[in-house]
């Protein structure tokens, strides 16, 4: 029995033990995120199939796009018969935040080999970014190979189940009765993702302005309202943040 509890040796070859340890730390620290990722992936499989995508297309989303919120929004807009350009613009806008992830990891990984940075870009989801930036900032003395190994350990735990459980949801989803109100799965999911983001006044201002504009513009052809409401919300957030930081400077000065 003691054999079973021993850590599995890693196929690290000539690499230093600290690289192997970083890999294992990344792997272990990623495990709790499965609690969120697995149901979410199942739901995407179910929702995409219910909307009429076939299995290959559903998997195409989870393998090639690998970004939950934008996958849900693309499927939602497609079921609303929005024009293709509107589907792409809205879904890409949701992923724009990843430019910020990319920028904030660059000081830590900028000197890794180009092929490694290209691979990291593919797996840069909310969870890998959140784990990486916390680890790198708390342990600034990690070497570049150690940082890359940490991500290499976390990535399979986070990204492979996303694909696997999309498949499970897509195949099991066909057994769900038609009377179930699946149309509301996306609104619930997006509300549940947005609510925890209400950390500051500018975040609340951005969301409120975006929601009110989207409601006011709902008469526009399907999906186009969000192209105006989104930027309005973003502007409201940016303005509120600028106003807040000016006030803070005035108070302290």
């Amino acid at each position, binding site marked *: 029995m003691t054999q079973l509890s021993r850590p599995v040796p890693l196929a690290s070859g000539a690499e230093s033990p600290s690289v192997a340890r970083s890999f294992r730390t990344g792997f272990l620290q990623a495990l709790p995120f499965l609690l969120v990722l697995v149901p979410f992936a199942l739901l995407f499989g179910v929702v995409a199939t219910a909307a009429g995508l076939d299995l290959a297309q559903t998997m195409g989303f989870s393998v*090639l796009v690998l970004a939950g919120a934008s996958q849900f929004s693309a499927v939602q807009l497609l079921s609303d018969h929005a024009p293709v350009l509107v589907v792409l613009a809205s879904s890409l806008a949701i992923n724009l935040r990843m430019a910020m992830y990319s920028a904030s990891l660059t000081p830590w990984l900028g000197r890794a080999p180009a092929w490694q940075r290209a691979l990291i870009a593919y797996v840069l989801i909310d969870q890998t970014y959140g784990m990486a930036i916390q680890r790198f900032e708390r342990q600034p003395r990690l070497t570049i190979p150690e940082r890359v190994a940490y991500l290499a350990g976390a990535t399979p735990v986070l990204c492979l189940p996303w694909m696997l459980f999309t498949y499970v949801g897509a195949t099991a989803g066909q057994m769900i009765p038609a009377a179930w109100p699946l149309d509301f799965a996306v609104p619930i999911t997006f509300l549940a993702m947005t609510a925890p983001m209400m950390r500051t006044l500018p975040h609340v201002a951005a969301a409120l302005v975006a929601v009110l504009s989207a409601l006011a513009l709902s008469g526009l052809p399907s999906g186009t309202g969000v192209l105006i409401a989104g930027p309005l919300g973003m502007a409201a*957030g940016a303005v509120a943040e600028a106003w807040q930081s000016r006030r803070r400077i005035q108070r302290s000065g």
Partner: protein
Amino acid sequence: MPGYSDATIWLVILALGIGTYLIRWSFLGAVGDRPVPDWAQRVLRYTAVSVLPALIAPLVMWPAATGGQPDPVRLYSAAATLAVGLLTRSTLPAILAGGTVLGLGTWLA
């Protein structure tokens, strides 16, 4: 998927995949170790928090499933999701709360 050809759906998947990859690769791959301008950081910070709720607000108020009429079950479900999300600061309990209210409401109705 009704309304689109298979080729169109694959075009959406490929374009979204490539576009998302380029966004992720942008600074890491091409821009390198240069600072992001303040205004850009400010706007990027509020994209998700604006676009996600803007996308679903009309679906909550006027769901297509009830012919565009406000539906009490869906409104209560949305309110439960929002309330639990705000209180717990966490996505999964919020989804469970909204799903439970939606399921119970549909079953009772």
